[in-house]
């Protein structure tokens, strides 16, 4: 089970002080938070991507590359990579380089993005969101897997004799998750390829999340990737913890009440009752988080949103300390009753090992930068 955090990268005034952090502060805070995540033993740090204020992460691989240099173990991921408005060729290039620099500690989560004007800024139309996600990702897969690509589609200039440089590390592309809150087509896409499916699990009630995950699992089996319970599922979630629950509620409420997206809406109590948000003692957060398994089955990745809505860095780091304290119990809880055939989320190492098993006598793909092949790396 992978446990980690994901961040939107919003620059929001702290409602309790009225102070707005600078872009510089928030960018450096992202690095501090990622390093802290590794320090407390988390498995994943995932960075969002936005191309409009009040968000800073317009260049996720620059940020993740910098973090890669300052960490050793944590997997760097995205939440999400805009497969609709980015050129798939550029995504392939950027994340190939990142994968090499991070020694394979990289995977991606594809998303469409829901900000209307961002699409035309990049020459696209939000109404083509699903079609863009389908076509662009189909191309991205080929760029990472085929040496020479001839391609023609609806949205991008055709490619003739294109070879991606650099090739993916060890000839093995990063693992890909597909994130969607409500589009069944995206669950179907993830299932078709046998990729991971991630539900943000923040804005909607758990019964909806369950529906999406169920659909993905059924279609994963339908497309022949294995039994439904072996599909690769990730969930989001959010919490705010203090030693005693009244303190947590009192401290978080002013942030919740005016938070971007769901602020000025339901009360904190209603939101806690109807969505996966937990605000309370470490024990309460632990119990609510572990209850997700009963809704979606045994899953592979749990990411928490902890640094949004103007929460100061100091508070975020305290939240991570508390998360670190319940981490052993979380892991123990997830392991409990987990059948042996439930796979872990693929990592670079596991994908390399699988590539070797699946291509025992085929041509050895050589990584033309490192000169290594999956065979050599395995040996």
């Amino acid at each position, binding site marked *: 089970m992978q446990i980690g955090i994901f961040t939107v990268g919003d620059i929001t005034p702290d409602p309790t002080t009225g102070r707005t952090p600078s872009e510089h502060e928030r960018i450096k805070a992202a690095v501090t938070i990622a390093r802290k995540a590794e320090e407390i033993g988390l498995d994943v740090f995932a960075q969002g991507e936005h191309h409009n204020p009040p968000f800073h992460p317009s260049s996720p691989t620059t940020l993740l590359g910098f973090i890669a240099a300052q960490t050793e173990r944590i997997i760097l991921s995205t939440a999400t990579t805009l497969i609709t408005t980015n050129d798939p060729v550029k995504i392939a290039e950027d994340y190939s380089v990142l994968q090499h620099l991070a020694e394979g500690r990289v995977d991606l989560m594809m998303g469409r993005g829901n900000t209307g004007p961002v699409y035309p800024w990049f020459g696209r139309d939000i109404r083509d969101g699903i079609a863009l996600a389908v076509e662009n990702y189909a191309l991205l897969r080929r760029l990472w897997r085929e040496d020479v690509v001839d391609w023609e589609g609806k949205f991008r200039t055709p490619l003739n004799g294109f070879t991606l440089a650099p090739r993916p590390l060890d000839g093995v592309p990063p693992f890909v998750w597909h994130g969607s809150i409500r589009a069944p087509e995206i669950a*179907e896409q993830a299932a078709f390829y046998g990729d991971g499916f991630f539900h943000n699990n923040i804005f909607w009630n758990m019964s909806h999340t369950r529906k999406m995950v169920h659909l993905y699992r059924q279609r994963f089996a339908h497309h022949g990737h294995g039994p439904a319970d072996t599909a690769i599922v990730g969930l989001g979630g959010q919490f705010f913890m203090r030693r005693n629950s009244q303190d947590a509620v009192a401290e978080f409420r002013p942030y919740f009440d005016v938070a971007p997206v769901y602020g000025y809406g339901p009360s904190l109590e209603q939101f806690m009752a109807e969505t996966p948000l937990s605000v309370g003692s470490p024990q309460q957060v632990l119990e609510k988080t572990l209850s997700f398994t009963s809704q979606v089955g045994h899953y592979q990745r749990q990411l928490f949103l902890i640094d949004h809505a103007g929460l100061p860095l100091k508070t975020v780091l305290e939240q991570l300390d508390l998360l670190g304290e319940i981490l052993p119990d979380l892991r123990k809880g997830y392991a409990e009753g987990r059948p042996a055939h439930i796979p872990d989320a693929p990592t670079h190492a596991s994908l390399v090992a699988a590539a070797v098993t699946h291509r025992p006598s085929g041509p050895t793909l050589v990584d033309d930068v490192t000169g290594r092949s999956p065979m050599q790396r395995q040996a």
Partner: protein
Amino acid sequence: MTTILVITAGMGQPSSTQLLGQRLGEATLAGLREAGQQGVQLRHVELRTLAADLASYLVSRVPSQALREVFEAVGEASGVIAVTPVFNASFSGLFKLFFDLLEEGLLAGRPVLLAATGGTQRHSLVIDHAMLPMFHYLKARVLPLGVFAATKDWGGSETRLSRRIGQAGAQFAELVAATPVVRPVDAFEHVTSFEDLLRG
């Protein structure tokens, strides 16, 4: 089970808007029974009880349990009777909010009877000039006969509000009886296969 859903946006309790909706619902039921349809039930939704839920959903995208149930009821209704009070020469904001937040396509092909209440008869064209364009946009199958009730209509015998309610109810019953129930397509049951998605 055939359900006629009455959605009213009255503010008060009791409310003439709610009363008009109830009378229209009963008239429709009587018409359906006459046509031999038994076991038809009437369900009433007063939007004032969902006002906070609707506003919350608008700004937070989190639908409350109560709201989800009502949206589901719309998707299962054989007919919808929609009644609003007139505010500033149009439907009320609460009325609009409900239909703004209703999932796309949920009213398409569904029989709808429109009605409104107002202080004076001078507002009676609100059904044709304000309500009709919205329901046509939503592709509802709107009964051409709407019912407008001004305050005075509830007293004056010469206006024969009851007769108009009876007429509209009878005609709406015919429309409902002649229209197969449009069930919303469950995107989770009817998945577009990825091969089709790839073909674009």
